[in-house]
């Protein structure tokens, strides 16, 4: 069953066509990678899923509901979480607070005026947040300033912030960009481990090792259009992909 | 029906508060016996009494405030018998002996009104609550005077107004504990009337630019009443925002309005700017309706004359007092002030000096600092020898009635202080009015502590 269904999405930026009739179906419980050369429209497409950009035409339905024209926070409340290309975290807060905040959003909805209870008294939130931080390997840094983390740790923290919400769909925008080999491997491990929870994931990635290790399905985007889609092995051998992607070089 | 019991003894409550602190109070921060007697800040057997001088030290009127403070310091000297004695030599009737007040040495504290009601009241409260002043005085705007005057009534400490020109101060907002020596907008109008008739005739068309707040409105009203009584027409009265800076957008409509007189109901910086700009627009050299266009500034001050420079030349207005007056009182005051500071006093300095002296003299005459007695002594007090001729502190509204000066910006000044020339000293009788016309109530003599 497709949890995310993208039909005929187009988007122009001042006469420049960024997305052209994109169709995409993401199956429940799978890892779906979107690859393509720079400027192919990958991030624009992702932005259409979270309400940052509204497509000019086409439809995006998630879990049977349209995602178009609704606010980012409503999309999140519907079960879509996102990891950004450059980690977006609450730099002035501690790690555990960073994770508690999405946990509160999940539990209390998009607005609740609870200005009397102490954060610390919400035991289940605290437990959950700490457990997730442990999962991503940040258990020893619970009370550190998030802003002082390394880039890799920030990414892990952001992942924890998404995981704590137990989303139905997780969007990962280049989760290993700028990471060392060792960090990349650790991230792959982590993503594989959380894969066991059955969260559907969309991954945008340049690192083909990551893509071919994780993905069940791959869509290739070039010049705003999906030029190929299929299982990793099929994509690897697709000459159209090689042509578009690397100018004919072998993957 | 009264829901709340008003008969709670306020004094006892206050004493309770003081008791907490009095034990720890450092010297001169608390007059300990302050509330022990029957009126606030009773000096009792202390060797000295304190006045509070509350003047603008920051903001647009800081220079005027500085001049007021100089006058007060001089007054303190003279009351204490130091210096040349100043107006103690010319004032009649005089009770002061040049040994302080009722044998107590006079001291003073200062404060900054910032020309804001809140700041002025805060500063006055500090003087009353912390420094224990027996009287306070000063200020350079009517808003402040009215706000502070009502505080004086609440606290039961006499306030001698500084520079305030609004009719309200001794009209609808008059207070038993507030006294004004300075003249007001009504008197400006009454004094200007005959001079305007003489100089400009009875067939004139006037255009008012008025600062858009209470003082501006009362002055506009008073001048309008006077000029319309002369037979003038009022073409238009336009309100301008306080501190507009550039008044050009208000001045250009005057040019072709058919008016031949512009009346600027502005004060301070607004006055300097609007006059400068009006002259720049050629209004002073214009001919309209076959007559020379005239500008009138109903209230003049040295501050304004200096700020507007050449532009005041030939422009009519009124002042409370001017240093070039030749009577003995004025001469004596100019002499002591000039010798002390090296330049002549402004009208603000004069009124403040006189106010300090009048209060001190009333205490001496009453033989007590007890405010109701001092107030009764000042009410209806008639004196002379302090400039402006014979002067009456009218009992009904605490307004001084005395000669008012109509002045003109001097065409050929002989020295750097010679900015205004006196055109006419309008006698007291011509500017006196019925106290009832402005309404208001003075309130009680005795104020619960």
């Amino acid at each position, binding site marked *: 069953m497709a949890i995310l269904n993208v039909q005929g999405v187009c988007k122009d930026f001042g006469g420049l066509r960024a997305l052209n009739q994109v169709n995409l179906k993401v199956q429940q419980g799978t890892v779906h990678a979107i690859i393509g050369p720079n400027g192919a429209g990958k991030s624009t497409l992702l932005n259409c899923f979270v309400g940052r950009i509204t497509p000019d035409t086409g439809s995006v339905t998630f879990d049977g509901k349209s995602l178009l024209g609704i606010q980012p926070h409503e999309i999140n409340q519907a079960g879509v979480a996102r990891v950004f290309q450059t980690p977006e975290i609450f730099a002035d807060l501690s790690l555990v607070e960073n994770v508690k905040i999405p946990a509160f959003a999940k539990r209390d909805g998009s607005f609740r005026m609870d200005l009397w209870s102490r954060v610390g008294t919400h035991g289940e939130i605290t437990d959950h947040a700490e457990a997730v931080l442990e999962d991503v390997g940040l258990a020893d840094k619970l009370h550190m300033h998030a802003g002082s983390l390394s880039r890799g740790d920030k990414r892990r923290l952001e992942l924890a912030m998404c995981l704590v919400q137990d989303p139905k769909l997780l969007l990962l925008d280049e989760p290993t960009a700028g990471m060392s080999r060792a960090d990349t491997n650790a991230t792959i491990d982590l993503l594989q481990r959380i894969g066991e929870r059955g969260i559907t994931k969309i991954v945008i990635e340049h690192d083909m090792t990551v893509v071919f290790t994780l993905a069940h399905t791959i869509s290739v985007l070039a010049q705003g259009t999906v030029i190929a889609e299929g299982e990793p092995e099929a994509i690897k051998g697709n000459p159209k992909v090689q042509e578009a992607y690397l100018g004919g070089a072998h993957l | 029906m009264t829901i709340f019991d008003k008969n709670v003894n306020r004094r006892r409550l206050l004493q309770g508060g003081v008791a907490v602190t009095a034990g720890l109070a450092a010297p001169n921060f608390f007059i300990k016996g302050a509330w022990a007697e029957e009126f606030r800040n009773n000096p009792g057997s202390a060797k000295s009494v304190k006045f509070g001088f509350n003047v603008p030290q920051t*903001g647009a009127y800081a220079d005027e405030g500085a001049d007021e403070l100089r006058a007060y310091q001089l007054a303190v000297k003279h009351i204490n018998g130091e210096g040349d004695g100043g107006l103690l030599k010319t004032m009649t009737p005089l009770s002061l002996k040049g040994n302080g007040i009722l044998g107590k040495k006079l001291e003073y504290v200062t404060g900054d009104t910032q020309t804001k009601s809140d700041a002025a009241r805060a500063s006055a409260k500090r003087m009353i609550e912390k420094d224990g002043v027996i009287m306070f005085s000063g200020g350079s705007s009517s808003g402040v005077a009215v706000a502070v005057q009502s505080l004086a009534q609440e606290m039961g400490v006499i306030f001698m107004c500084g520079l305030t020109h609004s009719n309200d101060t001794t009209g609808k907002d008059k207070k038993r504990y507030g006294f004004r020596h300075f003249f007001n907008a009504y008197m400006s109008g009454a004094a200007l009337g005959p001079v305007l008739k003489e100089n400009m005739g009875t067939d004139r068309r006037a255009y008012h630019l008025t600062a858009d707040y209470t003082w501006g409105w009362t002055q506009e009203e008073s001048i309008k009443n006077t000029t319309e009584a002369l037979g003038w027409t009022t073409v238009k009265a336009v309100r301008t925002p306080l501190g507009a800076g550039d008044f050009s957008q208000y001045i250009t409509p005057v040019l072709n309005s058919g008016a031949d007189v512009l009346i600027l109901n502005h004060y301070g910086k607004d006055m300097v700017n609007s006059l400068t700009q009006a002259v720049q627009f050629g209004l002073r050299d214009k001919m309209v309706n076959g007559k020379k266009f005239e500008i009138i500034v109903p209230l003049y001050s040295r501050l304004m004359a200096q700020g507007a420079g050449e532009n005041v030349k030939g422009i009519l207005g009124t002042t409370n007092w001017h240093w070039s007056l030749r009577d003995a009182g004025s001469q004596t005051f100019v002499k002591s002030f000039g010798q002390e*500071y090296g330049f002549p006093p402004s009208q603000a300095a004069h009124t403040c000096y006189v106010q300090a002296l009048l209060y001190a003299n009333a205490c001496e005459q009453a033989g007590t600092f007890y405010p109701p007695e001092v107030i009764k002594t000042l009410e209806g007090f008639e004196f002379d020898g302090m400039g402006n001729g014979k002067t009456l502190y009218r009992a009904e509204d605490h307004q001084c009635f005395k000669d008012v000066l109509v002045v003109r910006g001097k065409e050929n000044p*002989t020295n750097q202080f010679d900015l205004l020339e006196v055109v006419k000293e309008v006698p007291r009788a011509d500017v006196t009015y019925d106290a009832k016309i402005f309404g208001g109530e003075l309130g009680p003599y005795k104020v619960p502590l």
Partner: protein
Amino acid sequence: MDAVILQALNGLDKGGAYALIALGLTLIFGTLGVVNFAHGALFMLGAFCAVTMQKLLTLSRQIEDTSVTFFKAYKEVPYLKIWFGDTGLLLIDYSVPLAVLLTIPVMLLIGLIMERGLIQYFYKRSHAEQILVTFGLAIVVQEIIKAVFGANPIPTPAPNVVAGSADIGTWLGLGPTLVYPWWRLIYLAFSAAIIAGVFAFLRFTTFGMVVRAGMQDRETVGLLGIDVQRRFTIVFGLAAVVAGLAGMMYTPILPPDYHMGMEFLVLSFVVVVVGGMGSLEGAVLAGFLLGILQSFASMNEVKSIIPGIDQIIVYLVAVVVLQVRPRGLLGRRGVMEG
């Protein structure tokens, strides 16, 4: 008709002053990324350059006025008159325009000192902290001026030649009823010239090109091996000169006092924001727009419909513009929104 033309001129005149201050503010903000709340103080310092020039030229031999005995009163005869006669008096008469000689070097120096001595340490600090430290500086500067020159406005008239009014009605063929003061026309021309000068400088000189590129993308320009920093320091100096000249030329219209900078500061910030943070064209456009609207809102015909509109027009326009155009008239996304 006359009334409309006159009000338009009034508005352009006021707008010129707003635009000049806003232009400098935007230059500083665009290049250095600093919000300079002391910019009003620079305007005021420029005005006091004119005052200083006047005081220097009128340094006088003081002849005691013996008719006054209680204090020392003088008849002041300027040395320039003693030395050069009428030529000297002419020099004094021209003290405001002559003050250019003082204003440009002094303001440039003040600008450079300010940037090197204080502002450069605030590039990396938050905008709130930049606002606060420059605000503190503005208070200190104006209090120093108050201590030296007093709180009272100081008259600084324009030269006699241009003291009168120009007969623009005749020029335009509208009859002799339409006159406008020369000095205000000069101010208008002057502000237009300075604005044009600044734009030409940025467009046609290499220095200006580098600065403009730096305003777009500072890091890339830095990578080209160009010392952007030094140029930006000079830009700060230039912005100070522009503000100073605006203040100096304004003195015959508004006798300067120590507080005038603060009064212009709030308005010029409204102008900058309405124009759009970081947009030079926006600053100029909004300056003139607000000036003109302010003039027309003061017309009796308008005031009789909406009482008090002239009191609030500038702020009302700001609110409306920001509702319709979230980043001001010509602002860019993401600038000063955090």
